């Protein structure tokens, strides 16, 4: 089987590859979003902690 035959999928390339492509896109988004959300929350909490510390330092 040649590579172009493989990509042609017996004439069904549009249907097969768009199915696989869409699956890839949806799975990547679903992986990326919570990952970023997690990092964002961590960053925010760390910033808050630093600010709290500064307030403590200035008040004492």
């Amino acid at each position, binding site marked *: 089987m040649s590579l172009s035959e493989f990509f042609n999928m*017996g004439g069904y390339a549009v249907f*097969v590859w768009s199915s696989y492509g869409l*699956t890839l896109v949806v799975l990547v988004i679903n992986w990326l979003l*919570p990952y970023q959300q997690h990092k964002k929350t961590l960053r925010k909490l*760390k910033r808050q*902690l630093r600010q709290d510390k500064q307030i403590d330092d200035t008040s004492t």
Partner: protein
Amino acid sequence: MFKWFTKWFHRLGSPPHFYRIAGLWLPWLSGLFGILVIAGLYGGLVLAPPDYQQGESYRIIFVHVPAAWMSLFIYMVMAFCGVVVLVWRMKLAEIVLISAAPVGASFTFLALVTGSLWGKPMWGTYWVWDARLTSELILLFLYLGVIGLYGAIDDKRVAARAVATLAIVGVVNIPIIHYSVEWWNSLHQGPTVTKFDKPSIHWSMLIPLLLMALAFKLYFIISLFQRVRAELLHRERNSRWVEELIRS
């Protein structure tokens, strides 16, 4: 044994414990997922022969069927968490329930769209309002309903209980989806793998299908763990363990 189990269950339900364990597991699960996907795709797209009737178009099966299975499985997970939420008011179950919903909605969406892309060349149409397709569409609306309802209620503990009820009531749709192809006339083919007879699919196609199904299941766990970790951190932001985590 039972005592050991309840102890394990309680420990698992503690947010800092779950946060840590899930974090430890994630890289291993991701590695295993990668191996399964590569093996499944190679088996499905390269090794498996073309179908004698459908030619190469049938290869959509390797994403369509695992996605459809996951759409049902994740709903069952959500409903199970719903019961735990209503009966034991377990906080972790609330978070797992609502974290599972977007992943479930995604797989339902994928099952519908890849099915539609398969239907066009084989049935001659992207969509028919038959029992299987319609009940799967209702499943998507149930998932979206869960997400929307949770977002609409500000008190998240109240929201979780409302969503738990919705998830449990919606379970009635699951057997309808599964048996729809037997109870009603449908363009959709009957079950080939999940029936009591031997599966009527050749092993060269069955093995990559099962590999992809397993990969999708792992993917669900990975995505779920990530969401649960993010949500735990946010909800428990004022607790001691989060403070210690941030400090370190």
